[in-house]
């Protein structure tokens, strides 16, 4: 190759990686459904949230190519979730503590 003057990223991810990510996403969907059918007490909600978060991370890293992205793109991706965290943490630090008894 003598056309190195551009640095357009070429997607060299093998097809099996995409198929493996797909298989994990499908399995995660089925596990999410099965786990919701069993009474696990307080744990039902965190399990659903953790599985969904893992699935989202896989999509971002592999399908959306974050793993091959520039650092500047990483800053934007991470900043999005930092601000989402601020939104939730500040809101729930209010709502979840409103009924705490004084003393």
């Amino acid at each position, binding site marked *: 190759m003598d*056309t190195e*003057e*551009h*640095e*357009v*990223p*070429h*997607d060299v*991810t093998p*097809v099996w990686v*995409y*198929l493996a*990510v*797909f298989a994990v*996403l*499908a399995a995660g*969907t*089925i596990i*999410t*459904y099965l786990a*919701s059918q*069993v*009474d*696990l*007490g307080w744990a*039902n*909600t965190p399990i*659903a*949230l953790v*599985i*969904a978060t893992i*699935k*989202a991370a896989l*999509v*971002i890293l*592999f*399908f*959306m*190519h974050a793993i091959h*992205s*520039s650092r*500047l*793109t990483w800053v*934007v*991706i991470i*900043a*999005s*979730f930092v*601000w*989402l965290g601020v*939104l*939730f943490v500040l*809101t*729930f630090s209010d*709502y*979840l503590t409103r009924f705490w008894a004084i003393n």
Partner: protein
Amino acid sequence: MTVAAHDDDHVHHPFLQHQFEDLGQQHEASTLGMWMFLSTEILFFGGVLCAYWIYRTIYPEAWAIGAAQQKALWGGVNTIVLIVSSLTMALAVRNASLGRKRGIVIMLILTMLFGLTFLAVKGIEYTAHWHEGLFPGTHFTWNEHPDIRDKVQLFMVFYWGLTGLHALHMVIGVGLLVWILWRAMRGHFGPEYYAPVEVMGLYWHFVDIVWIFLFPFLYLIHHHGH
């Protein structure tokens, strides 16, 4: 006109915009710009989901009963349909970066078909909910639990709002796919220029991620009853 220090005398790529040094820089700017848009989308859906969680913590029983009105099988099937569409979208981008025109076209068509399948299933669910009296407002005639009827109605406001916003994104996504498909068929994309396919993929995968969260939030809430 003299062009000082401009030593590349070759013909520029037809899709290289003149403000960029080269296609690599243009590609980087395109994906970065799409991620910036997606960060606003993350906070847009995040705001609605935050409101959803506030009411879920206040009315856990109504949220569980509201979720029980959903057909988890339909939601699960649609989740798989969207994941398959994300796989075909990712393969479309891969084919574009490798310059496989036929592969891009086939994968984009499959992505559109799975997207339309998702919307068709959603339409079946919406029709059923309408007839069950589960549309908020004057049409809300559902009354299986009179004591918490209005709180279940509030859940359904979030159900219709969140799935409606998501479905709107899907409709826009299918429209964008038509455009990208048209460009692919005209042979616009190849290893040096496929940023539009890549950016299309970023949008499509984001909409998939939203649904990955909506499925457990709206269809699968376990009620502990004590």
